[in-house]
């Protein structure tokens, strides 16, 4: 048995659920980015927990965490770039009003 790992993974699962709910339910682009951030944070918790409780001598586990942090930064930069462009052309970042992107 491995109770610490179970606690960490449970918290990761809960964060993922909350993030998924947020990403789907919010109408605003910035809030959707927040939901995605929470889901990535859940992934971070799981990665660190796996590193700590299963393979503490494999430092590649920590490197994965760094890569996920880089992904979070990239996601924010691109998301905000799109948000600014959208706000400039349409005056809002409400996703309900972005039906024309459906094609």
């Amino acid at each position, binding site marked *: 048995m491995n109770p610490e790992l179970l606690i960490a993974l449970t918290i990761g699962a809960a964060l993922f659920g909350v993030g998924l709910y947020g990403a789907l339910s919010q109408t605003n682009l910035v809030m959707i980015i927040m939901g995605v951030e929470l889901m990535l944070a859940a992934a971070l918790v799981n990665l660190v927990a796996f590193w*700590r409780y299963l393979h503490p001598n494999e430092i590649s586990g920590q490197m994965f965490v760094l890569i996920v942090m880089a992904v979070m930064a990239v996601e924010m930069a691109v998301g905000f770039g799109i948000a600014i462009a959208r706000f400039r052309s349409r005056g809002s970042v409400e996703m309900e009003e972005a039906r024309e992107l459906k094609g």
Partner: protein
Amino acid sequence: MNAEMIFLTFFGGAAVWFGIVVFRTHSMVRSALALLFSQTAIGAMFLVMQAEFLGVLQIMMMATEMSVMAIFMVMFMMDPGGLGAMDMTHQKRLSLWAGGVGLVAALGLTLGVDWGPAALSVPSASAQIEMLGIELLGRSMFIFESAGLTILTAMVAATMVAIAPQDKGGAK
């Protein structure tokens, strides 16, 4: 129940609680800062799990990221202070179901798998930092460099998308 489990539960609970607050408060600045404190609690969890460098890095990076998030919220939202208490959600039932199904699936996987025994000893914090440095600039250098290049590209691309189109005269 040892000290490590108690602290993990405490900080994890704080992270989840602040994560829920993000989508429940009407004030946009509060929601961005709730996300920040959720991420900080996750950084504290890393510290409890003896990944000192990663925990400190997480706590440092998120302070910046989420403050930037806060100013974007204030810039783009109609009611950043949340005094009007407007509803900004859609497809609530679907999202609740999706979140619930995701949670249950992940929990089922967590509890259903035999993870084997816990590893007891961890390299010391300074040894970890040294190993991580050697890993980053040795075996995983290519991956790390590509991540850096990706960030640079994203920065340039995002700036290009966001920059105001120049009026080169004659358009009037």
